[in-house]
Structures are given as structure tokens and as C-alpha cells.
């Protein structure tokens, strides 16, 4: 793309806010009651996280990988692709993230989580619970109605936020697992910002929190 500096974010916005949010409405109607299963999976993640044990990292990684895979197929390819020609590329990234979670989290068991012992685990849990319980409320709170709610496990933004919450609480954070979620925060944050959505600051704020926390952990002196 030549003269790239002459382009603004609005030049890349292909749809209106009305079309974007209406897509969630049609998607939610199409997949009902998968949302209930997704919310149940989110509660199971918190329960397994709380319980701990040898396999908890593997179980949580498996559930997260399944969520990323579902979003790639059911939302990005089957729905978002109808209004955004870039959606198929996003779907590839989401499948890649599912594979990374499966490899590092299930095969190599590199995602055991801390529970409440340290500040980072409390922050991570807070971010996860925000994605699970608060994010679906944004649509009705902002006047768009329940049908346009974005729900963890089936919609991309809360799934990404929840994943960053898990990574924040990881005992041994695998930084490569944060790359695609952080890139999505930039892409979706820019989309919402350009549309003038009031929740446009949420994803960038979570991304900055994650980056800052990871940076702090990297520079912290060894005990």
C-alpha cells in the first residue's frame, strides 16, 4: 500500500456500528444455547483454577483452546466474514492460538496458575471474571440490548480478555501465548475506537495492563 501515512483508521472500517452489533444479535440467535455452555465452561475454569491440582493447567488450556477454535469457526468464518474480508485471516490467527494453547498448555503443561497468593494472580482472576461476567453486560448497559451481548467462549473480545487474565496469573508465563491476544486487542480496539464505541478503551487498557505486568515480571529481581 503506497502513501500509507495518508490513511486513517476510518479508511479501513468496512461497516457501520449498526451492522457490526447487529451481527452479534444474529450470531447469538444462530448459536443459542451455545452461550450457556460457554458460560458454564468459564465457571468450570474458575473452579478448576481454585481447586488447583496437577492437571488444572492442562484442563484450563484445553477449554481455552476450544473457545478459540469455536470463535474462529463459528463467529469469524461463519459470520464476521460476511462483512469483513479480513475475517478469514483473523480466523487463521485464532486457530493458531488454539494450537499454541494446546501445545504449551496441554502437551507441555506450561500453564499452571497461581490462586490468590500474589497480586498477579488476583489481577489475572479479576480480568478473567471481568471477561466472564461483566463483558456480556456491556451491550445491555450501553443500550444495545441482551441479544447483542458478547459472551466469553463464543465472542472474540471477551475470549481474548479472559485468555490474557489466565496468562497474567500463570506461574511461568509463556510470552508467545500473549502475542495473538495482544494483536487482537489492537485490531478490535482500533475497530471499536473508529466506530466511536464507548467500550473502545477496554481492550487497549487490558493489553497495556498485560504488557506492563509482563514487563514488571521480567525486570523483577530474582528472590
Amino acid at each position, binding site marked *: 500500500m*503506497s502513501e500509507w501515512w*495518508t490513511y486513517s483508521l476510518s479508511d479501513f472500517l*468496512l*461497516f*457501520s456500528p449498526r*451492522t457490526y452489533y*447487529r451481527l452479534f444479535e*444474529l450470531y447469538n440467535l444462530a448459536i443459542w444455547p451455545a452461550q450457556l455452555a460457554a458460560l458454564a465452561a468459564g465457571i468450570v475454569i474458575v473452579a478448576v483454577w481454585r481447586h488447583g491440582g496437577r492437571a488444572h493447567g492442562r484442563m484450563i488450556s484445553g477449554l481455552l483452546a476450544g473457545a478459540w477454535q469455536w470463535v474462529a469457526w463459528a463467529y469469524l468464518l461463519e459470520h464476521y466474514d460476511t*462483512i469483513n474480508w479480513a475475517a478469514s485471516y483473523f480466523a487463521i490467527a485464532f486457530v493458531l492460538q488454539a494450537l499454541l494453547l494446546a501445545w504449551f498448555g496441554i502437551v507441555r503443561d506450561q500453564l499452571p496458575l497461581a490462586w490468590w497468593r500474589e497480586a498477579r494472580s488476583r489481577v489475572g482472576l479479576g480480568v478473567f471474571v471481568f471477561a466472564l461476567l461483566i463483558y456480556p453486560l456491556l451491550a445491555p448497559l450501553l443500550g444495545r440490548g441482551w441479544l447483542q451481548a458478547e459472551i466469553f467462549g463464543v465472542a472474540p473480545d471477551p475470549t481474548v480478555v479472559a485468555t490474557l487474565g489466565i496468562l497474567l496469573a500463570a506461574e511461568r508465563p509463556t510470552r508467545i501465548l500473549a502475542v495473538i491476544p495482544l494483536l487482537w486487542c489492537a485490531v478490535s480496539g482500533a475497530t471499536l475506537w473508529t466506530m466511536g464505541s464507548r467500550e473502545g478503551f477496554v481492550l487497549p487498557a487490558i493489553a497495556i495492563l498485560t504488557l506492563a505486568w509482563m514487563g514488571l515480571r521480567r525486570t523483577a529481581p530474582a528472590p
Partner: protein
Amino acid sequence: MPQDLTRRDMLALTAGVAGALVPLAAPAQPRILTRPIPSSREAVPLVGLGTWITFNVGNDKVARDSSAEVMRAFFAGGGTLIDSSPMYGSSQKVIGYGLSKLDAAKVFSADKVWISAAASGPAQIEASRAAWGVPRFDLLQVHNLLSWEPHLKTLFAMKAMGSLRYVGITTSEGRRHAEFERVMRAQPLDFIQITYNIIDREVEARILPLAQERGMAVIVNRPFQEGDLTRKLARHPLPAWAAEIDCTSWAQVILKFIISHPAVTCAIPATTRVDHVRENLAAATGRLPEAALRARIIAHVAKL
């Protein structure tokens, strides 16, 4: 009143008289102004219909029907030229949906080729044609000069074979004007498409005069700066001089300013609303501003 006339008869009689009077009482639809395509002298209405963002509604049946109603009002108001691109998401398919419900013969189909790989151009054009559901495009343009050399060869070959009527190139927001000008000088284009409005007037200096000199029709995109200009002007009262050019809204002032430039063939505002498409088409009727009033419009808007 004759005794044998029932209430039903009276109602029918009243309705019949009223119906007969409607064509007399209703104002005749003003004639829509046209301008000829220089290379063929075919007349094109001065206001067309853009589809960027507005027609990208995916598979939403309600929104597709709404877009079809916009198209119905557009054709009913005398409009013909609809512009789209493979870049605009589902817009082409939504146009095709509308055309399948309406009289497709009225449409002047303007689309674009937008793909880096030159070899993929014909396949993309065919996919676009299938999405519209038209036998052939009236106009195909190289979108934002992307791979313009091989794509223009394809388009001129299609025109020579009779599978395309007109060839053009596009840019927007003032990008690549130097290269745009070079292509205009070197290629026998029928159309160019550029951004032009009261605020963005860079094309007045070289591009528009060159189009006149080379005999090229001009389509104007983003006349309302994606709504920013109309929203900004809506905060201010419509000046008294707007009545001198039969304008009842700022949107019409903006459009009349654009289409009054003698080089401009058609402006393509995009909308999702039937009332707006009617308002836009009304800008292609009545009086247009002369040079003095055009200067006054520029000065007035600059002060706001």
C-alpha cells in the same frame, strides 16, 4: 343525493374522484439533471449511489431489504449509476439482492477491480459480476490504482470484446494524484473517480481540468466526507442563499456545489435511508450555483 346510492357507493365514488385528481394535484417529479459521458455522449444523472459501508450488511435479511428499498427509491427518483467494489465486503451481493427484486435494466453498473495479483483480476471481475447478477458491467475502474497497468490491459481488452462499456481509474482522499495524473495523460480512459467536496478541493487545480481536456467523465466519491461534513454543517443554519439554488438542506448544498463543477459527471453519496436518497437525488434538480455563488459557498463554509 339520489336514494339508490349506498354508503359503499359513495365511498367508492369519492375514492375514484380523489384518485383521478391525484396526478393533477401532486407536483410533477422534477426532471433530474444529467451530464454526458464525454467518450460516448450517453447521459448520466448527476447524482448516483455509493455503497461504501452502507451496503455492507452481510446476510442480514432485514438490512438487505432496507438496502433494496434505498435502491427502489433511487431508481424511482431517476437515479441510475450505482458504484461498488470488491473491497466493500458484502456490498456487491447486497446490490445483487436489490437488483433481483427491482428492475435491473435501469442500473448503470459501476464496479472496480481491486487485487494485487494481476492474473487474478479476471476472476475477481467475474465474481463481482456474478454478485451483482448483471450480464456485464457498464463501467469497471482500477481501484486506488492498485496494479493499474495489467488491470487496465484487461479492462481495455474487455471493452474491445464488448463485455464492458467503459474503463476508469479511482483514487480517494487525494492519494497518489501525481501518478493518477500520469495515467490520465497516458491512457484513453472513459472515467476517473476522485474525492471532491467543499473542503477537499485539491482536484480543482489539475485533475478536473485535465479530465475536461482529455474528455473523461468524473465520478465524485465521499461527497460528505463520510458524514463528517454534513454533521459539522448541520450545527449551523442553512443560509438564505440556499433557496436561490433550490436547496432545503446542507446535504443538497454540498451536492450542488460538487455537481455544478462542469467537469463533474456524477456524485455518489452513500446512504442507508430512503429519505436521504430522495434528498440527494433532489440535489440533481432545479438550479445549480454559478461561479459567483460557488465562491460564496466556499467562503461561507470556511468561516463555520
